């Protein structure tokens, strides 16, 4: 068990800097999710912690050891890869025992640890099989098993669920979460899926273009996104954005309608409001010309544009709603759900 501290971490390939001064202090036993679009540097960051990529500058600490120049083997970590990276020529048992054999752990002990892990993951029946004889979900479990038998200080997950089908993904997601809580091992989990990130993480680090946009609890990211990027990335469907002028906290929409925020800001800004925070109000400031409906059962998404303009907007209504397209609906949102961002995309409070 260990804390992980990233200090002023930079990664460059030749002249291109791909990670910019990343800072983070992860608590012992915490489940950290690094989330961002593809190419944001999240996998690179994970691989640096694993020791598979060199550190250009800055410092990585696991516990109180600086691990910058340590080989992966000496960092006491275990990693689950996106393609599982099982050893194809070994049985499931040997796959899980490989790391233990290298550490010269006695045979009986290896057998016991592998079987215990197999029981936890319910793969006891497959121990003698080869990876190619297993389904995707089973391989995933073996990869997890290989990580947990080692009893490392840190688990690293590199998009481990992205090769599974949707249903299995939800199931494995829960299992990973439960397993991590039960073992209490500090974990870093990389994903591009914001739902996965929200459900798994104790804290989320949102990366974009190599910069940390925000680092905090999932609810904090949802309720108080620090930037337009985080606001648009977290939450599904995405937040609606409009260019507005604000005077003393009151924003004037492109359509001329006014909405009040909980700030006292004046000037140009981007206004954001989440679809699920909009409620029908015939006289409300947000008038939607309905273009399309998505009836999902639990809620109904209303897609359209602001009346008489081209700005697209989505509203989410609870339950099944039947609304005719090309009608115009009014919506309002409470001032505490109105987010304002300045021209650089930073949140205004």
């Amino acid at each position, binding site marked *: 068990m260990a804390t992980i501290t990233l200090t002023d971490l930079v990664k460059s390939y030749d002249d291109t800097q791909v990670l910019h001064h990343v800072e983070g202090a992860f608590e012992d036993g915490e489940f950290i999710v690094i989330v961002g679009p593809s190419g944001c540097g999240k996998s690179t960051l994970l691989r640096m912690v694993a*020791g598979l990529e060199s550190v250009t500058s800055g410092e990585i600490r696991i516990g109180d050891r600086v691990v910058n120049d340590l*080989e992966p083997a000496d960092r006491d970590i275990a990693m689950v*890869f996106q*393609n599982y*990276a099982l050893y*194809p*020529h070994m049985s499931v048992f040997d796959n899980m025992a490989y790391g233990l054999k290298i550490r010269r752990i006695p045979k009986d002990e290896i057998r016991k640890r592998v079987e215990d892990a197999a029981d936890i993951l319910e793969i006891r029946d497959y121990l003698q099989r080869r990876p190619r004889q297993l389904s995707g979900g089973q391989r995933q479990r073996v990869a997890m098993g290989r990580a947990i038998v080692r009893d490392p200080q840190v688990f690293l997950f590199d998009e481990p669920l992205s090769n599974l089908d949707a249903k299995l993904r939800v199931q494995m997601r829960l299992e990973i979460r439960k397993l991590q809580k039960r073992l209490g091992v500090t974990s870093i989990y990389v994903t591009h899926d914001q739902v996965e990130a929200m459900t798994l993480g104790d804290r989320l680090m949102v990366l974009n273009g190599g910069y940390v946009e925000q680092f905090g609890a999932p609810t904090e990211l949802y309720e108080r996104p620090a930037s337009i990027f985080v606001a648009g990335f977290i939450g599904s469907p995405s937040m609606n954005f409009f260019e507005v002028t604000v005077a003393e906290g009151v924003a004037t929409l492109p359509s001329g309608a006014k909405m009040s925020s909980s700030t006292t800001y004046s000037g140009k800004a981007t206004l954001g409001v989440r679809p699920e925070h909009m409620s029908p109000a015939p006289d409300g400031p947000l008038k939607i010309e309905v273009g399309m409906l998505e009836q999902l059962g639990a809620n109904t998404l209303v897609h359209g544009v602001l009346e008489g303009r081209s700005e697209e907007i989505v509203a989410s209504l609870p339950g099944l709603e039947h609304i005719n397209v090309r009608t115009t609906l009014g919506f309002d949102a409470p001032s505490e759900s109105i987010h304002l961002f300045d021209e650089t995309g930073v949140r205004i409070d």
Partner: protein
Amino acid sequence: MLKRVHFPSSPLPYLLVAPQIAITLVFFIWPASQAMYQSFLIEDAFGLSTEFVWFENYELLMEDKQYLDSFGRTIFFSAAVAFLSMSLALVLAGFADRVIRGAMVYRTLLIWPYAVAPVLAGALWVFMFNPTLGIISYALEFVGVNWNHYLNGEQAMALVIFAAAWKQIAYNFLFYLAAMQSIPRSVIEAAAIDGAGPMRRFITIVFPLIAPTTFFLLVINAVYAFFDTFGIVHAVTQGGPANATTILVYKVYNDGFVGLDLGGSAAQSVILMALVIGMTVVQFRFVERKVQY
């Protein structure tokens, strides 16, 4: 019931395979059947009389101690060439797989020997090991080795093995490198995280995963050493000294064109042909199915 699809017959497919069939007929089937026929004949050295003797040539060969010795020598030679060239190629490929900067240059240089004709490869080694002029034999003198492959049969054999193996390294290297690069990077990384150092990863992960390639190359190298090394032997030792490097292919030539025993030489080449066919069958039967893991 599946409906059978009938295509209208057309001469086009036959036309398209005709060149290949013509080449096979002219350059393989015809000479092979000639050799087969010749192996049933005994001629005098001047070609004045010919007698059809069925299998007498083969019977003579089986009683010929020199031929049987040559057989054993060839097996030793093949095994040595295959082992030497494959193990060196494996080591080189292992390193090339880790090289990032200048990888292209490194690879290109390693592939060059494959483009060298066997006779030239042999000539190169002869120059380097020439007992009076050669740079290597000169160097060997300082460590107390008196190199003279014109007199010493074992040294002659070693030299032929070096030359033959050297030429084949490039080919083996290419296949090994391709095999290593097809192993997913993450499998190697997983092993590194599991605590295996480079040597251990090579032995426990890389080598088992390229086993199918090793098997394939083993057959290819055996075939090469058995049949494609005439030029090297001819350039380096001409089978000598005292037949110490007379391998089967060389004996075919020597008995036929030097000794003028055409029937016996033809019989030997038919036996060699049977061996090639046998090895090819082995290769297709097993390589197609791959060494399973």
